């Protein structure tokens, strides 16, 4: 027989002001199954909670209903109190007689009556509650970080320094990402290699970080704490243990004309190459598309000159399986490319380049060793036009969002150009200057006032070549929308930041949602920016949205903190409000008919198929089974299941049915 205790709170005057709490306590005492019904001024206070604990012990209560504020406020408080008194916390329910009753209705009989009915509903529900125990899920204390840019590096270092194993997977031959390509970084103009390469070396030497470069995630299965990742180690053509990075093979390689991806096409590289001198690991990779050995079958010069005999021309891709407990996606971004700007002649005129290409020109380790030279004839341009918002904030290009960092790096480019070409003229076409970070606005003001960059507020409609000059047709809206034509020697487009080409397939591998522009979606834009809706998968850096280095690093450390929090206990305990498929004794085994509508409907893919076999091993029936690690307890499957074989703990059909019966 149920022994229910009802505890009515005055909440000072908040409830007692409009609800006759004494009458309610008396009425609640008469409900069938209620053995203890009291009211108290502040139920959530320490004396209030002690009252509940004592009552549980003395009256050996099997269920508690606290009639007070919203369960969203104090349910955890009262459930913890019950647990301390030895009653399973899930046998405690709250009736909301404050926000949903006393605060919103006039003082009077109807309000008191409503409070009584709300309590009766909860009493009937509590009678059908079952004790539930939080779900224990083991946690593998190894993190997988995808992407070796500044965000990936920062996340890997933070997790490793927190004492956990990290596997860092980077697609290109070296870590460093786009930041490694930059010359200097705003707003302090410190050289990006100087602040990044020490971190890269720290990653390579960190005892707890296993670094797989020139590798990609092949597939990810499992759930939070128990992921199984398969990583494809693309064939490097070089044995990592033997190679010392002496670089002889790179000098001797006859193939010298391949456009270097790292230099964004501004420079050339050999078939066996290292992206840049500061690459980590400093071991070359053989580019099988351009290496003559793989095309014509003969050459092997690099093999001949390698004293360490480290060249492995017949090396094949290798798949490694690792168990990880959490994944941090830090796969970075890409920029919009030439095919999207016919009106600017980008891709048609060699002197129309994008931001990354200008970075390579300005970089001391770049193809021009830092001198600003036109790609067409190598001459120093006297007039350079920088165009901000090339593609961003432009519906016609399908990119309505602002890429956030172009105003800053365009001002930096104008400044670098003026520092290196003193009498050069720099024009910047912009719509609005977005310089909201720390010292950002001052940086842009400096570019305008001290370095003399001419800022024209307007958009460029067309660029065409005439008599060897690039005619930039724009408008200056601050001078009464007067058309402006500038004869430029070089044009730099601050093209939009877009998601990586394969961001969508990565999101599908990780089973995280992504937005229409293929940026990965965070769990909650304001309150959970580094988590995703898939438990155990975290986000860092520009793969989530365009952002600058400080934000990427902050987000990386945030994600690392989340991972460290996840790994802090050997077991993961989760709220037991999850769905369960019933199991019955043979011959039925379960009322589930195996139609698996629930499997298609589950947003968390938490439903698995279980084969029920007889002793001889042949399958009797295939039924659904809920993975406790993944299920978030939304209950959609419960409403969809025709035969009600699946039920949601905490909101079972029985409980909700009895709530209705108490109306």
């Amino acid at each position: 027989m149920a022994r229910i205790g009802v505890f009515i709170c005055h909440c000072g005057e908040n409830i007692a002001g409009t609800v006759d709490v004494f009458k309610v306590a008396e009425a609640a005492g008469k409900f069938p199954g209620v053995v203890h019904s009291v009211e108290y001024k502040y139920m959530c206070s320490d004396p209030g909670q002690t009252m509940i604990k004592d009552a549980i012990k003395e009256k050996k209560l099997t269920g508690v209903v606290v009639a007070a504020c919203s369960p969203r406020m104090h349910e955890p408080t009262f459930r913890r109190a019950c647990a301390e008194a030895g009653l399973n916390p899930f046998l405690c329910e709250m009736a909301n007689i404050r926000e949903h009753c006393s605060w919103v209705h006039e003082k009077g009989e109807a309000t008191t009556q409503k409070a009584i009915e709300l309590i009766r509903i909860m009493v009937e529900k509590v009678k059908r509650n079952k004790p539930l125990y939080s779900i224990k899920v083991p946690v593998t204390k190894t993190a997988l970080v995808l992407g070796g840019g500044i965000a990936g590096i920062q996340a890997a270092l933070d997790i490793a320094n927190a004492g956990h194993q990290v596997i860092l997977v980077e697609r290109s031959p070296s870590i460093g990402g786009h930041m490694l390509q930059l010359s200097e970084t705003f707003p302090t103009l410190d050289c990006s290699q100087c602040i990044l390469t020490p971190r890269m070396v720290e990653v390579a030497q960190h005892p707890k970080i296993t670094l797989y470069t020139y590798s990609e995630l092949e597939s990810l299965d499992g759930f939070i704490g128990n992921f199984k990742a398969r990583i494809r180690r693309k064939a490097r053509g070089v044995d990592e243990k033997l190679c010392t990075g002496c670089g002889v093979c790179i000098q001797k390689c006859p193939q010298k004309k391949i456009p270097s991806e790292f230099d964004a096409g501004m420079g050339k590289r050999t078939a066996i190459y290292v992206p840049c001198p500061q690459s980590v690991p400093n071991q070359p990779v053989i580019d099988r598309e351009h290496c003559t050995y793989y095309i014509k079958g003969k050459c092997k010069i690099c093999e001949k000159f390698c004293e360490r005999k480290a060249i492995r021309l017949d090396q094949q891709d290798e798949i490694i399986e690792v168990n990880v407990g959490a994944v941090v996606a830090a796969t970075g971004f890409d920029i919009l490319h030439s095919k999207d700007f016919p009106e600017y002649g980008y891709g048609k005129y060699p002197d129309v380049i994008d931001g990354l290409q200008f970075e390579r020109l300005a970089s001391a380790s770049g193809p021009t060793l830092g001198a600003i030279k036109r790609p067409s004839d190598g001459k120093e341009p006297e007039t350079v036009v920088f165009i901000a918002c090339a593609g961003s904030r432009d519906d016609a290009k399908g990119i309505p969002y602002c890429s956030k960092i172009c105003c800053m790096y365009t001002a930096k480019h104008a400044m670098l150009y003026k520092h290196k070409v003193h009498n050069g003229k720099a024009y910047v076409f912009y719509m609005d200057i977005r310089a909201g970070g720390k010292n950002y606005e001052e940086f842009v003001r400096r570019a305008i006032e001290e370095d003399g960059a001419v800022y024209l507020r307007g958009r460029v409609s067309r660029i065409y070549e005439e008599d060897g000059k690039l005619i930039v047709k724009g408008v200056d809206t601050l001078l009464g929308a007067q058309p402006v034509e500038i004869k430029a020697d070089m044009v730099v487009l601050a093209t939009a930041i877009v998601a990586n080409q394969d961001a969508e397939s990565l999101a599908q591998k990780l089973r995280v949602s992504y937005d229409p522009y293929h940026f990965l979606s965070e769990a909650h834009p304001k309150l959970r920016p580094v988590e995703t809706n898939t438990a155990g998968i975290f986000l860092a850096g520009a793969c989530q949205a365009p952002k600058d280095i400080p934000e990427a690093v902050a987000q990386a450390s945030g994600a690392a903190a989340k991972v460290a929090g996840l790994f802090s206990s050997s077991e993961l305990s989760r709220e037991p409000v999850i769905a369960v498929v019933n199991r019955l004794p043979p011959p039925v085994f379960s009322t589930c008919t195996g139609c698996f509508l629930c499997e298609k409907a589950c947003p968390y893919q938490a439903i698995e198929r279980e084969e029920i076999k007889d002793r001889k091993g042949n399958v009797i029936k295939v039924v659904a089974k809920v993975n406790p690690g993944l299920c978030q307890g939304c209950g959609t499957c419960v409403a969809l299941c025709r035969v009600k074989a699946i039920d949601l703990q905490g909101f079972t059909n029985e409980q909700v049915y009895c709530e209705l019966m108490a109306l």
Partner: protein
Amino acid sequence: MKLGYFPGCSLLGSARELEESLMLVAKKAGMELTTIPDWNCCGSTAAHNLNHLLSVSLPARILALADKAGMKEVLVPCSACYNRLAMAQYELLENPDLKKEVSEIIEMDFEGTAKLLNVVEGMEKIFGEDSVLKVEKPFEHKVACYYGCLLVRPAKVLKFDRPEDPQSMDRLMKKIGADPIDWPDKVECCGAGLSVSRTDLVAKLSGKILESAVKRGAEAIIVACPMCHSNLDMRRENIEKAAGKKYSIPVLYLTEAIGLALGLSEKELGLHRHLVPVVFPIREKKAEPEKAESAEESAGAVEE
């Protein structure tokens, strides 16, 4: 190949040579054009300046007639009509209430989902892979393909070629042996409807277009819209007065250039109707085209 056909008023009036050349080329290509029975004016710029409902109802009636005649695809050679029909179709499909209101006005129920083809798309259909046409007299001239505005804008609705740097007419010209130049004024405004009210403006704008084409060595301007033709050809006197300079560069319709290449005579194609005589400077055959060809080829290839 059977297509619906909507001539529009200008093809029976000031742009007769466009229809004549189109009909000849279509017949040669075995393309059957059946005019939409009882077609009415598309409303052009006048309607959409005055009354929105009128500017949607007129084209809607045309679409309804095309539906009734069971036409799946309709060729609309005049860019202005093509633009108005496409805009009306877009608005009607987007806004079911408007569609209900319009169908009451024109007392006809309709789906209005026929596919609209402008003259360039029409010519592309003729020159498709299985095209039976042979270029008899290659149109070996440097040409400036001028698309104007109504063919390409608004891009969200028309979705035709690349709005900023279209290439479809250039590809057709290469097919008939011409050498299309790379010039920036392909989609600049020629002054359009201001032809009567502000002829001075048209003279300035169209003058800039002619100047840019001539400077790049174009021997003819190829257009696909009666409005562009009239501003660049009929207003030539005003342009020359405003620019203080003679321009003898002829302006041809796309269909006329193709007609010439297919060996049709100038008379049949109605070239005599132009105000600027269609005459090309005689120059030695060999030297010129190869050099220009290669530069053009590489640039074109990169964009493709």
